[in-house]
């Protein structure tokens, strides 16, 4: 059984349909990259997968013992967060919130989990530091550590490299790749088709036409070639 199975999904808001007849599956251990132009519904799809928004039709089925709140989510940063007075440790620990349920305080295991994930992201030296004083790349690592506290299985990343410089971007991709090697399923929204083709094994292209398949199929399809050619064209001009 697949980890996530999306059947005939229809997305949109206020009676306006953005995507129709969306079908794809995610298997355990996949690295899926969702690409598409601005406004094609990438973020809407992600919100629907997370259960923040109801689909207009179709279904999303979780398998392989994945529960709805076991998805680790790396959202795009909000303005509120940029000057939020909170230590790295406090933020990462808040990823354990879902485990708590009605219990008001974090237990020892959760605190250890947070420390472990801070270490995993190479942020141990910064654990007591203030979030707003970190660089963009460091902030993303903190949020990634928080997402890892919420899940052992699957990460949903919404434009994880937005606003990062090339060197930090490359480090971020390597970091995500290493998590994938450890067996975590990755779903990533990206503008960066080059990186998608470098790291992902499946591509979901949404827009007026929808493509879903392996990276190789995408590169060999007329549709994929056209999109890649356009991307290259944009860069040359």
């Amino acid at each position, binding site marked *: 059984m697949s980890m996530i199975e999306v059947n005939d999904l229809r997305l949109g808001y206020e009676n306006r349909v953005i995507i129709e007849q969306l079908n794809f599956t995610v298997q355990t251990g996949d690295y899926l990259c969702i690409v598409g132009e601005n406004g094609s519904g990438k973020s809407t799809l992600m919100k629907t997968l997370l259960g923040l928004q109801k689909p207009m039709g179709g279904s999303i089925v979780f398998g392989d013992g994945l529960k709805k709140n076991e998805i680790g989510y790396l959202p795009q940063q909000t303005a*509120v967060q940029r000057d939020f007075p*909170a230590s790295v440790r406090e933020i990462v620990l808040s990823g354990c919130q879902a485990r708590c349920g009605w219990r008001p305080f974090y237990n020892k295991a959760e605190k250890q989990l947070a420390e472990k994930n801070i270490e995993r992201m190479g942020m141990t030296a910064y654990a007591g530091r*203030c979030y707003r004083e970190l660089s963009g790349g460091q902030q993303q690592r903190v949020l990634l550590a928080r997402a890892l506290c919420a899940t052992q299985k699957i990460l949903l990343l919404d434009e994880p490299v937005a606003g990062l410089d090339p060197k930090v971007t490359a480090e971020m991709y390597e970091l995500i790749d290493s998590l994938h090697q450890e067996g975590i399923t990755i779903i990533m929204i990206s503008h960066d088709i080059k990186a998608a083709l470098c790291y992902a094994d499946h591509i979901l292209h949404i827009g007026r036409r929808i493509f879903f398949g392996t990276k190789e199929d995408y590169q060999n399809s007329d549709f994929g070639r056209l999109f890649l050619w356009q991307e290259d064209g944009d860069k040359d001009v």
Partner: protein
Amino acid sequence: MFETLWEYLQYPFVRYALIVGVLVALCSSLLGVTLVLKRFSFIGDGLSHVAFGAMAIAAVLNLTNELLIVMPITVISAVLLLRTGQNAKIKGDAAIAMISVGALAFGYLLMNVFSTSSHLSGDVCSTLFGSTSMVTLTLTDVWICTVISVIVVAVFLLFYNKIFAVTFDEGFALASGTGVKRYNLLLAIVIAVVIVMSMKLVGSLMISALVIFPAVSAMRLFKSFRSVTVCSVVLSVTCALAGMVISILAGTPVGPTIVGVNVAVFFLCAGLGALLRR
């Protein structure tokens, strides 16, 4: 100076005022940090105006305990305001401004038209800026205030981690299954309760100062959510006590004096923060 203070402390109403002042300062600053960070600072202001309108209704109806009407009206408004903040045709800040000005005007109108007392402007003034003499507090007020404070502090401590999660990142909290709506509702109710509670002491125009100043001052100095919260409470209580002592000794109105001390402390913290960062 201390003798004068000691003399005043012999009067029960002065002691009541000090107790109520400390409790109000404690509760308002606890919530202040979250409100400021959630960009909801003005909700306190809007709600206090609503409470003023409700107070006017209570005065016109000649109720013995105005809390019975002020509390529910303010709580309902808080819930409505927070709800419109999320998905509304009228944006959050505009909605707050509309409700707050509307309630203020309505309240004054009511008091003006149906007023039973001989010195109307005095009544309005004390509702807006807090009573000048603090003699209006009764033992019942002190008890109500104590009970509410205990509840507010307990709620805050029990839900501290949830409040943090919801304040820092609503989207993530929602995605990981935390009932964001539930906690926003809880926050709204607690804010409304605290505001109604603070009205007697500082008056409805000054409450938002009690909510906002300690939090913003603490943020100049500290860098983690917990230390900011603790510092905000300490600052708030100290400022309230200092303000009340000054007002007793100098004979100034309580509310504005407390706010004045808060303003001074804010500039002190801002300066100190700038020095530390260098």
